[in-house]
């Protein structure tokens, strides 16, 4: 079953007089539960692709279908609703809210999803347990390390049991050891929770992982390893 489908998607930005083509005629299908790595150099369109799938932006041309629901021309309210219920995000610079504790950060996006505080507390604790941060739940983001902060944001993304989690360069702000452990954690979460996972990166460590990879170059898919096995594309 396809969780995500892109049909001939192009995205053009108009930052000044000259339009910038960020994505060009991209078609893509991602299976439910799949772990997809979006590779490519800086400026190749990875973030743009994730933002479109994350319903934070609209394609200039083409269709995006999430769980058989076409997202084009939806009202802001419906998009908010879809993001709230379908999507989890992991950002390069974590984007934790500094005034909230670890617990509250994970709880914050759940407020509109689970109204019962006991059930919600249970969800938060399960998520924090999954990333091994239960002991840190009363700390504030500035009281824990970068790697721990990214683990909090993983817990935050997975806590609501979303259908899709999107991670844009999640290891770029971390050192090698932390990056590796974050990767392993994300793989584990993808396996355990059966969540469709899309990870954008130009980190060689990630690119060596044996998952389906697509390579973007100047907004076009240059290579998709789904046909073959393993991550054996050439640069």
């Amino acid at each position, binding site marked *: 079953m396809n969780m995500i489908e892109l049909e001939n998607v192009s995205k053009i930005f108009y930052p000044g007089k000259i339009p910038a083509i960020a994505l060009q005629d991209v078609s893509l299908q991602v299976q439910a539960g799949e772990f997809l790595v979006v590779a490519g150099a800086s400026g190749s369109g990875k*973030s743009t692709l994730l*933002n479109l799938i*994350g319903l*934070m*932006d609209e394609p200039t041309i083409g269709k995006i279908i999430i769980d058989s629901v076409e997202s084009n021309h939806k009202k*802001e*309210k419906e998009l*908010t*609703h879809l*993001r*709230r*219920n379908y*999507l*989890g*995000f992991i*950002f390069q*610079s974590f*984007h934790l*809210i*500094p*005034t*909230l504790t670890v617990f*509250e950060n994970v709880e*914050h*996006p759940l*407020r*509109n*999803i689970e*109204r*019962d*505080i*006991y059930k919600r507390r249970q969800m938060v604790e399960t998520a924090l347990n999954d990333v091994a941060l239960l002991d840190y739940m009363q700390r504030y983001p500035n009281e824990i390390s970068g790697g721990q902060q990214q683990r909090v944001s993983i817990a*935050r993304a997975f806590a609501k049991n979303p259908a899709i989690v999107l991670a844009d360069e999640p290891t770029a702000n971390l050192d090698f050891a932390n990056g590796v452990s974050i990767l392993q954690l994300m793989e584990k979460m993808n396996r355990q929770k059966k969540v469709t996972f899309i990870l954008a990166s130009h980190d060689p460590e990630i690119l060596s992982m044996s998952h389906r990879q697509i390579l973007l170059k100047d907004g076009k898919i240059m290579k998709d390893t789904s046909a073959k096995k393993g991550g054996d594309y050439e640069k």
Partner: protein
Amino acid sequence: MKNRILSIACDLFGFIKFIVKNIWRNRRRTIITMASIAVGTLTLVLLQSYVQTMDMGLKADAVQKQFGHIQIAANGYFEGDENSGEHMMSLDVVNLVTEKAMELKQVDFVNNRVHLTGIIGTQKKSTIFMGISGIPEAEALMAPTLLKGKLLSASDPYGIMIGNAMAKKLGVDIGESLIAFVSTASGSQEAISVKVRGIYDALMPEQEKVIIYMPINSAWDLMLEKSSHRILIFLNDPAKLDQISQIMQDFIQKNNLHLEVRSWEQLAVFIKQIVGMFQGMIMVVAVIVFLVIIFNIQNTMHMAIHERFREIGAMRAMGSSRMEIVRSFLAEGFFMGLFGALAGMAIALVLMPYINSLHLNLPPGPGSDKPTPIMFTASSAIFLHALLVNLFTAFFASIFPALKGSKIKIIDALRYV
């Protein structure tokens, strides 16, 4: 059910905690904003409490020294050229009404007055006077501040009270004699000899120069008839004003007396005008103060949104609605308004009794030669008003930035470094 109420309570508590922490993120800026709100609240409370003192003072004075609570006069008197010879009440009528009023337990005392104008002076100097003549015992209760000598007394039917300014002008002192002349209704000139029994001190020098207080018998001697302009009724319970007015009205009707009843509020229109003028001045100050507050809050909110641009983007990406973003910024404005206003009110609560205890004075007001005391009379209505005005202002000032914050493009916010 219990669970749901608990959940709502917890969410509300969590929300308020979140808002307060957000407000506190940039302490310096928040303190400046809340200080401006506190100053605004303080200004509003002080000005209104000051005007309240004035209002109450004017009203008390108007009742005690000028009008009584209820006045009764001949039909047309209140509308007409007040103190002319027409529209007078005969002594019989005055006595009838006075007796009726005195029967009522809510009535403290009753006076009746006749107003006359003429010339008063010594052999050497003279001046115009306006005489207020009433029952001496009642006039003693209504008298302005006595500077020298004694108040009017029934035992001294020709002892009068003149103003300090008039005494200076005529060069007379306590115990000295004066001659008073008036033209009577029939056109003749009458004169009597009176004695300065007391010298009073009034707020307005104009009043001191011309107004004299004299026993009603001496006025009757000058007028050659026994009649009165108005009956003044003083209540021991001002709250009963309407009730007593009605009783007197009914009595007048029943006895077919061609009289009219007025309350002091109907007569003392000038108080409304004076207080209204001051309130207009407060409005001007308030508008300026609140423009400053609005500017301050908008600025603070814009900066807060700017600083939290990426955070808002992340929250929106994860499913927070526009409404939630608007709500949280409006709440920030509201709480800044609340804390600022409470601080201003707390300062006012300490400051006002302190300033009152210092007995400070302002320079004399227009037409007066006495300094104006600085006294504050606070009331819960004034505090509540200031609180509501500030909350509304803070809330109102936050609407625009909050809407702006909610409309950011998520991808721009997330790309923003």
